[in-house]
């Protein structure tokens, strides 16, 4: 993967895997006038086909497992999975609950993890900007 390939045109697709919606509030905030990550070259996209980055939240639930996999499989390669929040990192409040999995980021093998409950929009943006985009 070459950095030039993706510069200023990274599509971000989000998949909530049993989160509490707190992380989604902060992901959505990235598009408001205060953070506006389009200025950094990121675009929240509606289809996994348009995505380069997949953000995942939540501990992963049995009900979301297949849909999350299918969404990820629909993303063209190369792609990067980013785990957002303590739940996705496998160390959130519901870790160990009867229908909570190991963390969406653990299960879907995230490249990087943004800790926090939820992480702030600044923290998410900084993490996206730090992604290892060249190999």
């Amino acid at each position, binding site marked *: 993967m070459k950095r030039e390939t993706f510069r200023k045109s990274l599509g971000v697709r*989000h*998949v*909530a*895997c*049993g*989160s*509490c*919606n*707190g*992380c*989604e*509030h*902060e*992901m*959505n*905030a990235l*598009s*408001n*006038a*205060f953070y506006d990550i389009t200025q950094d070259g990121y675009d*929240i996209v*509606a*289809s996994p086909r348009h995505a380069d980055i997949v953000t995942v939240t*939540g*501990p992963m*639930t*049995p*009900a*979301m*497992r*297949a*849909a*999350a996999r299918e*969404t990820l499989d629909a993303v063209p390669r190369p792609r990067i999975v980013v785990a957002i929040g303590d739940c996705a990192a496998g160390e*959130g*409040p*519901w870790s*160990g*609950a*009867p*229908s*909570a999995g190991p963390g969406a980021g653990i299960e879907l093998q995230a490249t990087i993890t943004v800790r926090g*409950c*939820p992480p*702030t929009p600044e923290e998410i943006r900084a993490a996206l900007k730090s992604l290892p985009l060249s190999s």
Partner: protein
Amino acid sequence: MNGVHAIAAERFADRVEAECLTALPLGAYARAEEVRYLFLAASGPYALAHPREAEAPLRAVSGTFPLFSWDEREMAQEWGVRFDALPDARPLRGTAGEMPPAIVAQGAGLMRFVVGPVHAGINEPGRFTFSSGGETIVHLDAQLSYAHRGVERHVEGLGALQAAPLVARICGSCSAARSFAYARALEQLAGIELAREVELARLVLAEFERIYNHLGDLAASAAGAGWGPGFASGMALKERAIRLCRLAGGHRLLFDAIVPGGVGAQTLRERPRIARELADLARDIEAYLTRLFAQSSTVARWQRAGVVSRESAHAFGAVGPAHRASRGEIDVRTFAPYGAYREFAVRIAHASGGDSFGRLRVKRDEIRESLRLIGAALAEIGDAALPDPQPMAVPAGDATAVVEGPRGSEVVALHTGGDGILTRLHVISASYRNWPLVARAMDGNIVPDFPLVNKSFNLCYACADR
């Protein structure tokens, strides 16, 4: 009427149905020993209970009042409660990753399409199965539970005080309301009263949560009707409200701002700055609301979209803005006042059309009233010091508390054993109550109106799924 009233099995359903006509039905839950149907009267919540030792099947109340449909399906699926004549006998939630089949309308010329569980935006997961004839929706089956983590079972066995940060994280959008109800249930059990300043501070936090939620709903509804500037301005205001939440309660989404025995240590520290930023925000919000509701092409999309009649609002147990937009009278803050709401006369917002426009008008008016309430409460607190949370010993027993969250009544019912250990926690969120109604609100509407009708409710999934 207060407390818990045991009713024999053969009379139980009749009694619950009669009660639905005089009190606000909140929902129902089971535990190993009993089944409880909860109601709210002006004097507070109470329960009709049926002991389970006999295990005679109960007649399902959802045949008459569909509002209990999800509760009864959940009790049957997860607690093995046996019902006669359950109109929808499917399990409420998926098992081992498999969703129960969706209900689909059959007929010549009808088609079906499925949306979700992964949605186009940054949203929570849910599966919507539409049956439509061309553009007109004939039936919508909304199936949730993709965010079911098993939170109630998970907190069983924890100390009730220790579980508070978990309760705050069941749902990110109504965390303060749920923590408020949880704290009130525990304080009632422990028999403690809080200082007036603390109750006032809780009001401030709860109203900030309402403001940021309603602003987000208005912005999303502008987007649903295709007005970009209304979305962008609304989301910017929501961000400012969230920053004020951080300033007022120490967390952008108010997690752990309301705790058992009081409020978090970060609460209302920089009061002059809060007052200043609040005044600026209030002015800009007012300008936004005026502009938004004067945008006739946007408002025209909201009008007559997703109509809920007063009758279906009652039968489906609508709460919150969804209830008050369909000529409902009840807001828990005035119907069964608690804490600092006992000292302020909250002006309740109403609408009569039951459409998306009505729900959004209620939310608009509630933002204005919340701003007024926060200002009044801050003035009352002045520069009084806020005491640390009151220590409490949680005895064995049970308690139920209800508060008015952004989407309506937020109910927490809890049972404790020795050493203040939780033996059962049940959460009935306003979203859980209102979701079946969103599906019915779409009957006869056109497919392109789903996003804006849905956003006029803007219900949560996490606290409905638990």
